[in-house]
């Protein structure tokens, strides 16, 4: 228990910013540039953490609460999920709902801290964030229902257990494929990646997630970026486990396989970001409703 707890936290805390580096590198290569070094996100975080704080007159303590909760929630949520073949250190019946609601808590405080600045740009981003994630929520639940149907229990550890390998080959392969796609879309939405949101755009008016952090600077911005990296890794971990449900039994090879899977997800995100244009804002709800329908279809397939 303690060993797996330490392993989980070390894997998460050490490797999380690396995936952002890989995405940036992949985009640079597609653009014909050398790009920033892979470890650039680490340097950025270290630099931000050393800086001082600057606050707007308008803000209150809620302004601090957003980054704090946003950093801690992925950390806690990561304890509930298996990292590849490494079992979750904390696992109990029904922890899947806690997992979903922890991220909702983070969203609540992120959005509240954005509204704390009184800026209409941040208000815009906040409104978009709650709209999109509210539409993504049913998709996640449908996906969890599909997995719960295939598993014996209701903990994420059992949902993403080693029975998935047989399930892929058995009758549930089609459903698993569908929810894999759906969860990938949710990953892109929740982590503000292209085609749903562009973290590198220069126009505040069109941003979703980045605009909410406009007034956060220094260590707070660092916490937001680190929290976002952790969140991305936690959600990718689910995808990796779903797509590559094998385990070797030895923790070192399992960890290696898991990290390789995460490299794969990051490269995929990088490739999508390089080859796709951003969707128009009104299109995003349509895509999300579409994925909900896909996931309902997947549920019907396993329930019949």
């Amino acid at each position, binding site marked *: 228990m303690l060993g797996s707890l330490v392993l989980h936290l070390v894997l998460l805390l050490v490797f999380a910013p690396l995936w952002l580096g890989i995405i940036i590198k992949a985009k640079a290569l597609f653009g014909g540039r050398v790009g920033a070094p892979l470890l650039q996100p680490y340097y950025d975080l270290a630099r931000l953490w050393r800086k001082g704080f600057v*606050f707007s007159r308008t803000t209150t303590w809620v302004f601090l609460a957003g980054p704090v909760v946003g950093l801690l929630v992925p950390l806690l949520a990561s304890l509930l999920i298996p990292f590849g073949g490494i079992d979750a250190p904390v696992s109990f019946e029904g922890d899947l709902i806690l997992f979903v609601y922890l991220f909702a808590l983070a969203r609540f405080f992120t959005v509240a801290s954005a509204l704390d600045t009184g800026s209409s740009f941040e208000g815009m981003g906040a409104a978009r964030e709650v709209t999109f994630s509210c539409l993504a929520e049913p998709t*996640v639940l449908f996906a969890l229902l599909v997995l719960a149907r295939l598993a014996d229990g209701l903990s994420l550890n059992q949902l993403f257990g080693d029975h998935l390998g047989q399930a892929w080959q058995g009758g549930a392969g089609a459903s698993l494929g569908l929810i894999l796609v759906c969860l990938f879309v949710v990953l892109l939405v929740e982590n503000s990646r292209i085609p749903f949101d562009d973290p590198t755009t220069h126009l505040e008016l069109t941003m979703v997630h980045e605009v909410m952090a406009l007034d956060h600077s220094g260590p707070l911005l660092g916490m937001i970026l680190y929290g976002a990296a952790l969140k991305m890794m936690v959600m990718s971990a689910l995808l990796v486990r779903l797509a590559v449900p094998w385990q070797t039994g030895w923790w070192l090879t399992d960890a290696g396989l898991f990290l390789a899977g995460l490299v794969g997800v990051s490269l995929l995100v990088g490739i999508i970001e390089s080859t796709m244009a951003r969707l128009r804002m009104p299109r995003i709800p349509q895509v999300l409703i579409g994925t909900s329908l896909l996931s309902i279809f997947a549920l019907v397939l396993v329930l019949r």
Partner: protein
Amino acid sequence: MTLLGGGLLLIMLAGVPGLFCRSDEHGGERFAALLTLVGAVCIGAAIVSATRGSGELSHTFAWSVPGASLAFYLDPLAICFLLPLLIIVATGAIYGLRYWPHREHPANGRKLRLFYGLISGAMILLLLARNGVLFLMAWEVMAISGYFLITTEDHQAEVRRAGFIYLIATHTGTLALFALFVLLGPSTGSLDFPAAGTLAATGSSLIFLLGLFGFGMKAGLMPLHIWLPGAHAAAPSHASALLSGVMIKTGIYGLVRLTSLFAEIPAWWGWTVLLLGAVSGIMGVALALAQHDIKRLLAYHSVENIGIIALGLGIALLGRSYDQPALIVLGLSGCLLHVVNHGLFKALLFLSAGSVIHAVGSRQIDHYGGLLKLQPWTGAMFLGGAVAICGLPPLNGFVSEWLIYLGSFQALKQPGSALAAAVLAAPVLALIGGLALACFVKVFGIAFLGEPRTTAAAQAHEAPVAMLAPMVTLLVACTWIGLLPTTLHTLLQKAVGTWAGTVVAGVATGSVAPLRWISLSAWLLLLLVVVLFAVVRWRSRTAPRELGTWGCGYRFPAVRMQYTASSFADFLIRLFAFGLNSEEHGRQVAGLFPLRQTFSSHTPDAVLDRILVPAFRAGSWLCRRLRAWFHNGSIARYLLYVIVTVIVLLTLFTP
């Protein structure tokens, strides 16, 4: 029993001594609050001693009214409803001392206090009653006192209208209940409630439908919620807290009690309740998002939460129809715990909203702004209530929603049977949760954060201690259930046993839902957040605060440029346009040198303003036309009616 009866009388008659005091002095109101507190403590003590003993308390006295007896019975099911009631009644009574003092409201202060006591006592009586006549009497006292609470400020036309709609709705519901008890009578031989699980379900569909209508009307299930938004907005805040936190739950209590009487439950009952719950939940929160008035918004959230409670009840009913103990235990525990939770956090939200209204003098969210700086305590309390109502860990809303989620996931274990469709409750709950989050982040963000939008908001003051202490009490109760849900475990277990009989004897809530883990993760979350927050706060203690918010290059931002509540919700409301039909007045600016334009949006109620009012208007138009045609003053025609009637009677009744 002495404690229980004494407490009941104290609470019920708390407002009476005040009638003999001068209307502009505060002697009567303090005495009333004291009586209420003592009464609540008495009943609390009675409950504790009952749970220490057998867990039940029963007394029957003869009564000369035909068919009636003074049958009192305290069981775990009633305790689940009594506990939040006592807390809310007591905190509301103290809150009212400063929120609605006699000195500022000489015209209606005494009336408010009298009916506040009457409705509280009537609700306690109703939860204890085991006889149809006694139940209906308590029900009517509650309904009528509710009317007087709603119409406290009866000099306003809007308030009178809300009260009138409430009166019509509640009496329509009571009519159904009369029929319900008349139908129940013959099957049991007396108007006393039969023992749980003794009635046969065959031929009782009408009883269930009448109960669903009568109790659903009080609870505010979606198509029957018409009275609720206006009534809760019109009443003073601590009365709204009582109405929304406790009174509408008596409808749920009625449904739970009624369904406990039957030996078996037809499957369609559960499906109906589940469907109504889903509709109430989604449409309630969507309508709430579209509101600009903070109390109307909270009222629509009551509809939403009643929907969540009904989802839990529906799952439990389905569990009984399909003989699945796990579904019963999880569904009903979730339902009852959400009854408690919703009472607590909704009262907290209404009281803190009342404190804001008291300070700013407006109910419009867009008139607030930046209140967290001026009302730090009220703001923190509202934030606590908002986190709780969104069902977020580590507060109490999460625990009950989690139980209902687990209940619906249990249905997955029945592939091939129709029960599997009950899993759809989970995504519905997720959607409700997402929308509730959007709505509460909107209210908190627009009202308490940013810059004050009006001069009234800029001059707001913090509420006095007498108003803050009740809020703190309620927040502590919310946190308690969130952090230590295991303390309520035994009570819920017993209540489920009372409802479902021996079917669930082997299934403990703890075995299907590890509440201990939830408690542990809530503590861990709270601890980590507090520690990291303290670290960041300490590191930033010397940070400069003299700059304004970054305006993206614009130098002269004004407070009116902030995002408003309607803009925040606009994106989501457009997605729900099919059910909301918001009205927009005014035009968009156009051209290079636009003229001054005004814009306003308004979302009327989906059932009352869109269906019922036009339907009744059409009905009255039709009747007027018919009357004008029949009754037009021509003597010849009246003679013709007489002759026709005589001929018809002769042909019908001559052998």
